[in-house]
């Protein structure tokens, strides 16, 4: 049970980092900590409160490569639809903020 959780967590971190990298390409060195900080801020904002992790429901952890394409499409779609959230001044696609939140939750777990 414990081994399964560790693996799942590592996969999630890896997927999350990949997803965040596809959004924040230039900032790869501080990527994980930056994304985690954004996730933390998002969760403590009114928009992020009570967030359910849609990412998990989408089953992305099972197929990271497809997940990345899916994520990029979702990000573009959020921006096209105007579905953005403000996190510490950053205007992010809702799905991006959710990905960061996932990273934060996993980092805390």
């Amino acid at each position, binding site marked *: 049970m414990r081994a399964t959780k560790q693996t799942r967590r590592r996969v999630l971190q890896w997927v999350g980092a990949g997803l965040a990298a596809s*959004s924040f390409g*230039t900032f790869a060195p501080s990527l994980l900590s930056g994304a985690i900080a954004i996730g933390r801020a998002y969760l403590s904002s009114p928009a992020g409160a009570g967030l359910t992790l849609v990412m998990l429901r989408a089953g992305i952890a099972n197929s990271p490569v497809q997940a990345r394409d899916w994520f990029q499409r979702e990000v573009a779609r959020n921006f096209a639809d*105007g579905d953005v959230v403000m996190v510490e001044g950053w*205007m992010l696609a809702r799905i991006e903020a959710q990905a960061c939140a996932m990273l934060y939750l996993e980092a805390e777990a």
Partner: protein
Amino acid sequence: MFIDARTLPQGTVLEAAVCIVGAGAAGITLALSLHEAGITTVVLESGDLEFDGATQDLDGGAVVGLPNYPLDTSRLRYFGGTTNHWAGWCRPLDAIDFEPRAGIPLSGWPLRRTDLVPFYKRAQKLCELGPFDYDDPDAWIRETGASGQKFDPARLKTAIFQVSPPTRFGQTYREALRRSEAVKVCLNANAVDLESNANASSVDRVKVKCLDGPAFSVRAGYVVLATGGLENARILLLADKVRPAGLGNDHDRVGRCFMDHPWFRRAAIARFTHPDPALPLMFDEVALRGTTVFGTLAAGTPQPAGEPVAGGFRIVMQRLYRVIDGIDSLRTVTGALSGLSVPAHLWDHLGSILEDRDAIADALYRTMTGWRTSPFAPAMPASGPVTGAVLDINMEQAPNPASRVTLSRKRDALGQNRLALDWRLSDVDRETYLRAQRMVALEFGRLDIGRVNAKPLPEAGWPSDMVGSRHHMGTTRMSDDPKTGVVDATGRVHGIANLYVAGSSVFPTSGYANPTLTIVALALRLGDELRRLVA
């Protein structure tokens, strides 16, 4: 021909078909047009051929509303006017700027853009620009060998600006006017009053005073005020002998609806997803087709459905070679502290503030002084991959009758009441600022150019580093209806047969473009009108 008005005998009466008051971009353009037609014209210019402090002081006044540049430094009072130090950025207004817009009271000109296009084309030449081609930015971009971004046209577009050398109207056109037999330019001649007939339906003469010299007057069939966006209103308000509220002011419109282009420095920072994104013309002025051009991001049209009503904007970008976390953090910390709350994650923020303290000192110094360089400038690479950009927002101000100039009690050396400028912005302007930030964030995100960190507006009021652009507009606005405007579509003051106004004071709305190309185009149009009337 040039005359030093100080040499005229006291009480002289000069006669001409047309009297133009003021020799800046508008006055000189009009004078050239009348000179071509051989129409006798007297141009009254307050200053001499060179700058003089005592004359410049006549422009002094109070700034009592939102902070703006002092009135005596935001314009120049000698032959050539403020074009003696303008920067030369030129662009016509967009078609949407001329149209009435739902939710923006008093919007809409009594002209369409197509009415002005022939005059814009002629204005291009006077401002020493290239072809009148502003509507196809991709054509300019292709010439750079790059390809631009496919912005959603309702959200954002590339706006092309051309850069004048910049034309110093007082130098470039001095010889033509010196040689003119029809046009007499009187230097050191301050128009101080407009004497009208008994029912103020026409102006009989313009009264003039020199600072050290005689008083005299000009009688002309037509009088044109071309003294700049503030002084045009001042002269009308001062002409209070027959109409106590001033000429053209029967409906209390003169001086109201003052507009500038509010300029918000560092209104946002963009971090690019990948270095060096394709944003051709956005960062540099480039020589193309015999002129110099650059681009800015600007408001798309029509505004996307469902967005709050807002005005036009442009976003001027400067490259960042290294993104500075500390400045973002400083912004968060000071923003939270000024709202008396402790920001979340203070520890992280303080860390990045300490790391980037040179960059922060530099940014603060430059913000406070308005200078472009500072002794604290960190060793930042001036080249290398561009990883982000600082975004300034420069935007349209919606017409607002409460934003105005009035006569103050203070007087100048000629005994004339000085102006007080009460600059005010409205809720529509807040939406315009937010729209600019939101549109660039959405489009940078959608096209995967990068992400935008937006500087919030204070809950009430405006950021302390907001400045104007020294573009004074709207104080004698144009409208078909005398209840909502001072001049009609030709520039004639409502109710006065022979009095006209030239310059940006007649703009009913301001768009986001710099005003001078439109000022020159309107002056050429008025020139044609006067040529027709005088003939």
